[in-house]
């Protein structure tokens, strides 16, 4: 309904509360909700993108994990305090991993009685080929599959091979991206044993 007031010079149309005006708060509320949802989604995407851009963990407390080896043994990183831990990510389909396999085993045989724990984490692999790989390179240190890629995600690995060295207090000392050697590992681990 319109109430019209007229005088000689101007005509003013004064409207009472129309249905459109009543709808305005609802429309505004709807837009506000839509914007909040959109901003939340953009925030989520931003966080995920940020996580992707982060490199592998290289310092601070080493992400804890529990690994069940191919032999059924369970290894928890948290229970290895007081020992230097070498965590190696590998896969049977990874050719550079084959370059370092012999050195890793040699390192293990040299340091296993000196307070060093070595763990092989088999990244997105098939068990048959993984076991064949371990047999081919006569690998004797504990190895197990990274079920659900949980460990590799925690360490934010970018590929294989990658090796992480953790000191006696559970802190990450360094990471080695790509194949490593016995000499490189020894040079890093030796000072940590003192």
């Amino acid at each position: 309904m319109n109430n019209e007031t007229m005088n000689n010079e101007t005509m003013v149309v004064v409207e009472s509360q129309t249905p459109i005006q009543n709808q305005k708060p609802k429309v505004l509320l709807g837009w506000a909700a839509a914007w909040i949802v959109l901003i939340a989604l953009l925030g989520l995407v931003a966080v995920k993108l940020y996580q992707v851009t982060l490199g592998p963990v290289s310092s601070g407390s080493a992400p804890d994990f529990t690994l069940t080896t191919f032999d059924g043994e369970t290894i928890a990183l948290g229970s290895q305090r007081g020992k230097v831990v070498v965590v190696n990510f590998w896969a049977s389909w990874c050719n550079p991993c084959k370059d370092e396999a012999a050195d890793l085993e040699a390192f293990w045989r040299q340091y296993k009685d000196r307070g060093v724990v070595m763990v092989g984490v088999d990244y997105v692999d098939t068990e048959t080929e993984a076991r064949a790989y371990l047999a081919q390179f006569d690998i004797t240190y504990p190895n197990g599959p990274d079920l659900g890629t949980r460990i590799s995600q925690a360490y934010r690995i970018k590929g294989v091979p990658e090796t992480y060295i953790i000191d006696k207090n559970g802190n990450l000392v360094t990471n080695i991206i790509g194949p490593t050697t016995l000499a490189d590992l020894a040079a890093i681990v030796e000072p940590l044993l003192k």
Partner: protein
Amino acid sequence: MIQKSEIRSQKSEAVIAALLVALAVALVFAAPVFAQNGEPTDDEVNAVAKQLYCPVCENTPLDVCPTQACAQWRATIKEKLIAGWSEQQIKDYFVQQYGERVLAQPSTRGLNVLVWVLPPIGFLIGAAALAYYLQQLRNPAPSVVAAPASAPPTDDDDDYEKRLEEELAKRR
């Protein structure tokens, strides 16, 4: 009167037709028999593989992925099919081993639910916004204060008209 040679010809045609029918029936049933007796065919393996993505390649379905790793995973699918596993059991195994990212069709758990929910919601919001916009175009809302039909000229209008007249006069 039908001659003997015609009868013989009709008989041989009937025999050939019967043989063709028998061959067709045999071909229809041959394929499943091969699949059941021997190993799963590549098609059967790929039917499962195409529902999975290579865990180490970017956006590559497992059935067309050329890497050694993917060949190993297809071999695993074959092994599981031989062992009598169902498609769902194989997919569950892959999820357990390599995480949910291997699934071509994301599950409806956790944040993955957004993948299923957001597109239809976005579509509905878009449709509603478009409908609202079109409605506004057809029925523009009446202005609260209508301008007078003939408002008295203001000083600003006078100045503007004066300047306009001057400019036009210069250009004549």
